[in-house]
Structures are given as structure tokens and as C-alpha cells.
């Protein structure tokens, strides 16, 4: 259960050092991505102007305020609240994000499934868990919204944030086949029968 500070972009070697239960704080650049962003990128063939190789993406769609473009807010947007959405809906985009775009880190909440875990293992990627619903706190780790692409999809555009001390995040899925989510799910499944019996609702019970 080690603590790491990583500055993006990262290498495969950086990722292979991470194990489930470790804590990671990110510095540098973070890309915000979401359902519609990935549907358009991978199902409808759209490409982004951003180079995502070695980078981290977070499952998000921020609250933004329109402002006059300035040095502080070059995109004409000021971030209001940047948080994290449930990752599971975007399960099937993990492999194309890694294979086609070179992404190495996915940040989200609630975890991803077996196909993503295999992609992390084969291609050298990691899933970092942020505490979902703690967006006010997460927003304090964002320094600037630097650039935006595919902005017709607003609020599900592709965002480039500059971050400072983003975390600590928990390594939920690593590149060695480890998944805290799968471990917890197995533990929960093992407890199910006893929980149901205590309720008088074991298989076959009708009362």
C-alpha cells in the first residue's frame, strides 16, 4: 500500500509499479471524458485534436460558466464544479481508449469490469478510484480548464484540465489483474446466503 505521485504523461513502467490498494496523487494534465464523448469518438469515428498518449482521463462532465476568453480562462469557460460520474456505463470504451488513443490511466467511480481489467493487464493501464459525489473537494484540485475539443457535445465535450495535487486516488484496478471491486464482489456474494437465511428468505422460502 504505497503512496505515489505521478506527473502525466506517464510510461508503461510507471503504471506497472502500481498495485491495488496503493494511493496515487496526479500532477500535470488531466482529460475529462464521458458517455457522449466516447460514443462519438469510437462509434461515430470522430477524432480528437488532443494527444492522449500516456495520459489520464476522468469520467466527468463539469459544470461550467461562460466567460470572456482570457489568459485565465482561454476556452471561454470557467470551471464551476468538476466531479466524477459512474464508470461502468463506459466499460466498452476502455480498450479503444488505450489501443487507439494511448490512454494509460482511467479515473472514475464504482469501478470497471473484466474486459477493462484485461485491457489494463495486456496494454499497461490502471483504474484510479476517486470518491464519487465529492465534487466540491475535487474542484479544488483543478487549476485551470486549458482547452476543449468536440465542444458541440457540451457538457460532454473532451476537456483538458491543468491539475495540482489531484488526489489521493485509490488504485482500484491494476495492470497485474488485481481489482478491488472484483474482490469485494466475491466477498459480498459469499455472504449473500447467510444474509438471506437470517431474513427468512433463503432460496425456496416463500413466507
Amino acid at each position, binding site marked *: 500500500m504505497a503512496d505515489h505521485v505521478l506527473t502525466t504523461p506517464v510510461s508503461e513502467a510507471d503504471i506497472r509499479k502500481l498495485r491495488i490498494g496503493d494511493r496515487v496523487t496526479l500532477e500535470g494534465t488531466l482529460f475529462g471524458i464521458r458517455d457522449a464523448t466516447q460514443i462519438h469518438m469510437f462509434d461515430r469515428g470522430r477524432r480528437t485534436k488532443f494527444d492522449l498518449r500516456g495520459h489520464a482521463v476522468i469520467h466527468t462532465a463539469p459544470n461550467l460558466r461562460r466567460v470572456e476568453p482570457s489568459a485565465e480562462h482561454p476556452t471561454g469557460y470557467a470551471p464551476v464544479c468538476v466531479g466524477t460520474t459512474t464508470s461502468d456505463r463506459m466499460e466498452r470504451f476502455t480498450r479503444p481508449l488505450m489501443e487507439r488513443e494511448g490512454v494509460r490511466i482511467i479515473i472514475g467511480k464504482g469501478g470497471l469490469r473484466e474486459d477493462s481489467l484485461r485491457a489494463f493487464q495486456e496494454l499497461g493501464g490502471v483504474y484510479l478510484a476517486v*470518491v464519487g459525489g465529492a465534487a466540491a473537494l475535487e474542484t479544488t484540485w483543478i487549476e485551470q480548464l486549458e482547452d476543449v475539443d468536440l465542444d458541440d457535445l457540451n457538457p460532454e465535450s473532451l476537456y483538458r484540465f491543468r491539475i495540482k495535487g489531484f488526489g489521493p486516488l485509490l488504485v482500484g484496478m491494476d495492470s497485474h489483474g488485481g481489482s478491488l471491486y472484483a474482490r469485494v464482489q466475491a466477498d459480498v456474494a459469499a455472504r449473500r446466503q447467510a444474509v438471506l437465511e437470517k431474513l427468512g428468505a433463503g432460496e425456496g422460502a416463500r413466507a
Partner: protein
Amino acid sequence: MTFVSRPGVEPLRIEPEAIEEAAKLLYIRACKILPDDIKEGFARLDVAETDATAKTILETMIRNIGVAEQMDNLLCQDTGIPIFNVLIGRNVAVDGWALKQAIARGTERATKEHPLRSSVVHPITRKNEHTSCGERVPVINIDFTDRDRELRLEMIPKGSGSENGSFLQMLIPADGVAAVKRFVIDRVMQAGGKVCPPTIVGVGVGGTSDLCMHLAKMAATRPLGTRCADAEGAKLEAELSEAVNSLGIGPQGLGGDGTAFAVHVETAATHITMNPVAVNIQCHSARRASATFTPDGIQVGF
């Protein structure tokens, strides 16, 4: 002969402009300030938690509640689907059509003027009008109460991560209440960390299919500490609360004791051939705000 009002009673008249202002204020307030009962729920789970990772996660959530209040920011990025419950008491005069339009205008103004992320799109084209409004949204539920000269407006920004944890099954009488319990446990397991635990698990038992799901939503958005009015329902929610919290799903689905603040049950009579059960889940950002209109003025709360 037509009676338009009861003789001798001056009804409470509420203008649409007041409803519009309240709707705007409540949407923004709900997104920023968590109700006291939810804060107390966090404190209870934090004290009882035995898993170190889970305790860290709960403490991060508690810290976030403070940061949101100090920085006047949103608790969660998800502004949800806006839901308004309108509870109209006796001797209240209100133009119902104007009231519905005022709620939508207030919602749109909160979205544009604060601003809030519009999380609402057309279900087929996925087009976002950036108003948090659309066909039949905001969701407006209207009911009547026995309170004299009082109208209560409740606002719930229902987050999608937990709303996607909604399940209905039309069980049959031969399945018994045991199948109702199994359904709740299995759906909570299926939802896992996706619904942002610790949650309030809302369970509807009885009614028709649509009423059953509505009961589950009422249950999921009820204040912590309240109990089902039906004695059997109250017994069931106590049993299920203990059961769900012995599964070990934990905060964010990463293991631990604190899976749910509570399981809430709401019941309705049903048909002799039916045994419907529904689950609707509320995430830990269990946001609510309310405005109560009386002859003395408007009181804002949770």
C-alpha cells in the same frame, strides 16, 4: 349552484412569480447544502465503520460537505433530473397550469443564471436544450394534504448514478414476501458501487407497476429517521436495513460496513394476483430542499 370558496375562509393565494423564485432558489440550494438528517447519517456510519479504507472514504465525503458550504459550491457535479413535489393543503388558491410553468421557468433560470450543468436531454436525439427542462421534465408530482392554508414545494435533484439503480419486478402472490426480500438484496448487490454508496435504498411494495416504482422513489427520498407508516412496511425496512449493511459492499463499493444509511419501504394496496416490488436508490449526496408557503410567509428548509 357553484361554490368557488368556503364562506368565511380567506384562502392562501400564491402567485406564480413566488413559485418561480422558490423553484430557482431550491434547485440551487439543494445542490449545495445537504439536509441535517443526511449529515447525521454520515456521522453515524463514520463512527460505526470498522474498515480503514471505508472510513477514509466516509471522511472524504464529510469533508466535501464542508468544502461545498464554505466555497458555496455544488456538492456533486451531477445536477440530476429535477423533481418537484407540490403538496397543496386546504384553502389554497393556486392556478395549477401557471404553477407548472413557473416551476419550469425557475428551473431554467437556476440552470442559466447560477449556472448549473443541464443534465437533461431528449431521450432519442440526445439533444440538450441547456435549460434542465424538456418534455415532462422537471418531473412534477402534485398531491393534496390536510394542512390549512399551506403549500409545500419540495425539490430533489436526482442523480443519475443512483437513478440507474432502479429495478421493478412483478412478483406473484405465490412468491411470497421472501422473494421481495431476495429481490432487494440481489438488486443492491447488482448496483454495488455504481450507485455511490452509502445510499438510501428505496423499496416500493404493492400498488400497480408505476405506483410501485413511485413508492420506491418516495422511500429513497424520505428523510432519514422517518419510518414507513404501515406497521408491516416498518418491520420490513428495519430487517432490510440490517441485512443490506451486513453484505460488506461499503462506501463506493470498495468494502466496509456502511453500504446504506437505511432501507426505506413504502407500501400500497395491490391486486389479489399481484406482488410487485421496486427498488430505487438515492446516492450519498441525498439532496433535498423545500419551501413552505403559509399566510406568515415562505420558510425554506429541507
